């Protein structure tokens, strides 16, 4: 990425959403317990096919998910199921 051509820098700052703070916190908490490392998380982010289409914290959340599944701590089915439950509680988008 360094040195690639790029346009003007957008200096707008978005308000951090609660889920983004949570993504940050889960990442830090897992790291604190030795369940994932910064390097593993970076590697997982870099490997995301959707890298360029995701926002910063979307990449973080996606990478954390990938690592948890990789390590057998969670399965993608149970995450899907629970996420669907949560979304329906929120009344859908």
């Amino acid at each position, binding site marked *: 990425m360094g040195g690639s051509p790029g346009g003007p820098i957008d200096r707008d700052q978005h308000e951090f959403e609660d889920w983004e703070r949570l993504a940050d916190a889960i990442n830090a908490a897992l790291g604190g317990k030795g369940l994932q490392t910064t390097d593993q998380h970076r*590697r997982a982010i870099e490997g995301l096919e959707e890298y360029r289409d995701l926002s910063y914290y979307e990449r973080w959340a996606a990478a954390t998910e990938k690592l948890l599944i990789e390590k057998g701590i969670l399965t993608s089915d149970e995450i899907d199921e629970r996420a669907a439950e949560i979304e329906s509680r929120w009344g859908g988008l």
Partner: protein
Amino acid sequence: MTFEPGDSVRVLPSEKPGHVRTPGYLKGKAGWIESLIGEFPNPEELAYGHSGLPERPLYKVGFRQADLWDDYEGPAEDYLYADVYEHWLEPGEGESA
């Protein structure tokens, strides 16, 4: 420790797959050792859950911007520093500073 501050070095042009912490724009470029930052486990292996041991020397490496970019807009004295692991460096041409 292979290198001393002032040594000329070149970043390996390796296209090693997987997680690396050496940016593409530095590969094959000539610079100098500014300082030794310390020794750390290899992040390329930590990334896959390995121990990353033995620890590797990490250097602060300086580059002239004019050497990195053909179209660099700025004086010859402008520099860039990156933190590069020893295994990505080989001795460069020219005398040590």
